[in-house]
């Protein structure tokens, strides 16, 4: 155990392996200060020693890594982390240790490494830069890279409120109470662990009560009135239409959550937003103003009054405003010595404060090293003076936290008195209350310290000299300055550096601050974990999983699964030690020789009813529909409005005005949208009902020479002939029996109410098994359909080919009228060189690499590619479908299928894309 013994300090934690004690409710920063730890981190670029600058979320210096394993959170602000038992915090960006960090050599070289130095050196070929870069990358970055998966869950939740109040200080509490009393649904959001805001730092009597009592009273009223109070919750982004993202810590970073959830992202929609976001104090630029022991004035006060921790015994207060005098009083009350108050403003500022006030004083340089400051020199009315001190409390004025207001499109108004931007007109229903709307006045001053050591952005080591250099080099837009110097791009997002840098830029350019411009405020206000952004969508739930109605039936057979989009579909049902290829071939052969059954439930399906059903379908389908007799079906294709084929399927006339349309699994949602668009936008008057029944109908395909016998046995009636339909029952379940084939064998699709999926499957499976057949999966289906020359959406119908390119030009409805017809006549559709669908046969019997380029001779430019390739199911040899320029005119040519990535080249013969029963003899009974 190290550190300082304190009453009530009972919570054990470690920092860099050393164990300390904290009091309940203390931040890590407070606990470290209480235990005498001043050096907490190292800066990004120069590895300068850094302590604690602030007491809030704006902290640029005191970043630590907390937690273990998958809960490791790097770059956690010690000022925004409440100590819990067992907290493990580690300093960052130092090697071998925090006190002795070899990276500090970058600081020694800082004179040769000004802003943007990397743009001016490391020339040579790109591969040369890659070598320099590897070194730079290792030196850059702050915390360690986590390497394990997160063991915790994250929640996302919707939230609605009439009034959302951001900030639980006095103004926020009042606004929330007022809204509640007006009968509104209220949510109050506070990033701290407790309500109170500035009252925790500056207690005072309100409504005749002390601060603590008043806060408790208001909180009780809010809670009992049904207001929702979210603490440890930060409004990180204010988006369109008063939508806010709120990041909530359900436990502290690195802490193990009891219920398994570490953090939550709220998606809030508010009628009105009230910003009670308060102020952010600004540092003062002077040489070595980044040393441990230089602290913002209000932070000093917070540590003293809220946490009972006095961060120094001998203190110089440097200020541009009245507020820091309150810090001087707090220090004096706590028994510290206030050596002097250096006020940039002329007399009589501070005259009646009772302190040793030195007016016209601008701090020049802090003395002291990594162990902390030893003193401060200042230029006072033109003369230099030195003060010994172990703490320098600085206040360069206050900037309203306008981040959310600005994100939401609100204007920013320059307040000359406060030397800060405050909220102007809001674009959304939002308003600013409390100190954020009324920042205190602050004096203007010119920094006098060595510009190269006067830090603005502490974390990224951006100095006054860097701003000056950027200006001199022509980077004059504030965005250029920011990007060139990296100012404001560190994890604190410039909360403390933004305004001082604008002052410096204005000075460099001889402009006013408003003329210098302002950078855009973008979400998030404070950084938010990716876990919270992803919510529950992690691991196996990263994207939805859709399980077909027969999922459990398949699972019992322990198949090889395939991710087909969101769907889980069986790829093959291996027996014993069969590989995928072996199982697929066995299943396919069963279909060719006997019979097989497979689950085709994921097909898109639409029931189309009504007197205008045929008229409607002749818009969607590029083939004729109206001539279809009742009980008959046909293959169809659908075109996009640009005339290219985007889907295919079958259309069945089930009754006088009743049709069933099927289309591809992968295109299902696109087709549903397309159909709905045509129905609602182009044909609103049509008397037609189109209902998506993709999930209502489970569907089982039964294919093979014995399928007729199997169906007859199952239904007790003669099954329909090819491309006809009937409505028998199977296992007592009424089904649509559609005689259609994807395999090239006589086959049936059985569509039925998915509630009965298991029973119907079982009945068919039994009958198929009795006929010597088996279930087959997508692997076998691929073998069968390529051999037959049936196409799939994606590889074959790839959205780039016309019906004619696919050899389907003659299927098109000669009467036109279908979607896509109007654009078919564009000239490029008829030009030579178009890719056309062909078949390929391996000349030597080798396998054909799928996806391979097709070249007329080795070394030639590609003229097409292999879209799908398989071995023949029964006979020897390999075959493929392909897209080939002018392919139909090239049947008989021998060319090469060439895959350079796989070192596989095969000679192939161009043939028609039908390798099996091209005349369709097997469809006849």
């Amino acid at each position, binding site marked *: 155990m190290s550190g300082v013994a304190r009453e009530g300090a009972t919570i054990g934690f470690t920092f860099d392996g050393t164990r300390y004690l904290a009091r309940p409710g203390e931040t890590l920063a407070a606990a470290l200060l209480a235990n005498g730890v001043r050096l907490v981190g190292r800066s990004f670029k120069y590895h300068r020693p850094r302590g604690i600058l602030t007491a809030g979320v704006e902290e640029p210096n005191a970043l630590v890594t907390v937690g273990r394993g998958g809960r490791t959170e790097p770059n956690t602000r010690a000022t925004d982390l409440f100590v819990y038992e067992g907290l493990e915090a580690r300093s960052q960006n130092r090697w071998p240790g925090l006190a002795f960090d070899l990276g500090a050599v970058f600081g020694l070289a800082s004179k040769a490494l000004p802003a943007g130095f990397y743009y001016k050196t490391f020339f040579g070929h790109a591969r040369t830069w890659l070598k320099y870069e590897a070194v730079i990358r290792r030196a850059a970055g702050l915390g360690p890279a986590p390497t394990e998966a997160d063991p915790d869950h994250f929640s996302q*939740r*919707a939230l609605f409120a009439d009034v959302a109040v951001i900030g639980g200080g006095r103004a926020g509490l009042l606004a929330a109470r007022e809204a509640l009393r007006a009968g509104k649904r209220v949510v109050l959001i506070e990033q701290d662990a407790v309500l109170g805001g500035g009252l925790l730092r500056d207690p005072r009597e309100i409504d005749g009560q002390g601060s603590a009592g008043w806060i408790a009273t208001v909180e009780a009223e809010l809670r009992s009135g049904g207001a929702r109070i979210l603490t440890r919750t930060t409004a990180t982004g204010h988006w369109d239409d008063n939508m806010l993202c709120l990041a909530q810590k359900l436990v502290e970073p690195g802490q193990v959550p009891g219920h398994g959830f570490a953090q939550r992202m709220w998606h809030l929609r508010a009628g009105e937003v009230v910003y009670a976001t308060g102020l952010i104090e600004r540092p003062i630029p002077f040489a070595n103003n980044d040393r441990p022991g230089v602290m913002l004035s209000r932070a000093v006060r917070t540590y003293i009054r809220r946490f009972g921790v006095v961060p120094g015994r001998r203190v110089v207060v440097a200020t541009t405003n009245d507020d820091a005098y309150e810090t001087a009083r707090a220090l004096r009350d706590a028994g510290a010595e206030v050596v002097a108050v250096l006020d940039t403003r002329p007399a009589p500022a501070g005259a009646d404060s009772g302190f040793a006030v030195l007016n016209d004083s601008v701090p020049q340089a802090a003395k002291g090293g990594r162990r902390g400051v030893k003193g401060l020199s200042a230029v006072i009315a033109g003369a230099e003076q030195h003060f010994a001190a172990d703490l320098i409390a600085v206040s360069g004025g206050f900037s309203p936290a306008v981040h959310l207001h600005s994100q939401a499109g609100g204007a920013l108004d320059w307040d000359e008195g406060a030397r800060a931007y405050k909220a102007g007109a809001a674009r959304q229903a939002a308003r600013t209350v409390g100190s954020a709307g009324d920042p205190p006045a602050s004096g203007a001053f010119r920094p006098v310290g060595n510009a190269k050591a006067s830090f603005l952005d502490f974390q990224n080591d951006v100095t006054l000299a860097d701003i000056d250099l950027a200006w001199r080099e022509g980077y004059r837009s504030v965005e250029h300055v920011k990007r060139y110097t990296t100012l404001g791009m560190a994890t604190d997002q410039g909360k403390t550096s933004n305004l001082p840098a604008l002052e410096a830029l204005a000075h460099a350019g001889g402009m006013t601050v408003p003329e210098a411009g302002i950078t855009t405020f973008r979400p998030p206000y404070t950084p938010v974990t990716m876990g919270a952004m992803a919510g*529950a969508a992690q691991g196996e739930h990263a994207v*939805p*999983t859709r399980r077909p109605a027969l999922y459990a039936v398949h699972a019992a057979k322990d198949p090889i699964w395939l991710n087909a989009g969101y769907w889980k579909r069986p790829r093959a049902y291996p027996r014993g030690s069969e590989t995928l290829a072996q199982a697929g071939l066995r299943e396919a052969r069963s279909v060719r020789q006997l019979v097989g059954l497979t689950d085709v439930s994921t097909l898109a399906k639409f029931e189309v009813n*009504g007197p205008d059903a045929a008229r409607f379908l002749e818009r969607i389908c590029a083939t004729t529909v109206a001539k279809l007799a009742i009980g008959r079906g046909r293959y169809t294709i659908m075109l996009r409005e640009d005339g290219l084929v985007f889907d295919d399927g079958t259309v069945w006339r089930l009754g006088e005005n009743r049709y069933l349309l099927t289309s591809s699994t992968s295109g299902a949602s696109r087709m549903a949208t397309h159909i709905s668009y045509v129905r609602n936008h182009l044909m609103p008057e049509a*008397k037609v*009902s189109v209902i998506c029944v993709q999930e*209502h109908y489970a569907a089982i395909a039964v294919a093979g020479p014995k399928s007729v016998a199997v169906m007859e046995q199952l239904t007790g009636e003669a099954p329909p002939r090819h491309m006809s339909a009937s409505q028998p029952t199977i296992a007592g379940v009424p089904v649509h029996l559609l005689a259609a084939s994807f395999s090239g064998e006589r086959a049936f699709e059985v569509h039925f109410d*998915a509630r009965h999926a298991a029973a119907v499957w079982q009945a068919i499976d039994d009958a198929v098994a009795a006929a010597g057949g088996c279930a087959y999966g997508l692997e076998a289906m691929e073998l069968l359909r390529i051999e037959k020359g049936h196409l799939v959406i994606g590889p074959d119908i790839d959205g780039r080919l016309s019906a004619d390119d696919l050899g389907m030009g003659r299927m098109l409805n000669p009467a036109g009228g279908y979607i896509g017809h109007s654009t078919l006549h564009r000239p490029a559709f008829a030009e030579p060189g178009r890719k056309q669908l062909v078949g390929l046969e391996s000349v030597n019997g080798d396998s054909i690499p799928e996806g391979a380029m097709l070249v007329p001779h080795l070394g030639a430019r590609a003229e097409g590619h292999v879209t799908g390739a398989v071995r023949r199911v029964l006979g020897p040899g390999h075959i493929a479908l392909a897209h080939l320029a002018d392919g139909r005119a090239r049947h008989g040519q021998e060319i090469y299928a060439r895959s350079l990535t796989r070192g596989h080249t095969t000679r192939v013969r161009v043939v028609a894309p039908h390798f099996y029963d091209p005349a369709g003899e097997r469809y006849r009974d």
Partner: protein
Amino acid sequence: MTELTITVLDAVPMAVLELWGDPAPAAKRLAKALGHALPAAGRAAGPVMRLGPTTWLIEGDHAALAKPLGEGGALTEVGGGYARIRIAGAGWRELLMEGGLFDAESPDFATDCVATTLIEHVTVTLRVESDAACLAYVPASHAGDLLHFWRQARVLVAA
């Protein structure tokens, strides 16, 4: 507070009723057959729940509606495509806010109110049964995912 329960109900036949052309005459005939008007947008009445501008979901046997419907529209079986999941207990509203977008905590979302929305990337239709229970109609293929999600998130309700 009663415990929050998440129960998959037995499947029943369901159909979508869609009206075309001028919907008023058919709606009138159907109202007579049902004993009440076809519910307006966002509402349910008895076994009938409004789904969309031209569509209603009918739960249970709907054979008796075919005749009054006549040529004014169509009834299409859809029961195989839905899982019905009942979330019961005082915390049902809170649970439905998890992963959600819709204001299920609004007091306006009361008994016999209906809303279709996205919950954890799944399109779900909600029907308020009472202040103590809500029925979710989930596409059958997504039901496994959503059940897992709700059962995992249950610890967060009033936690």
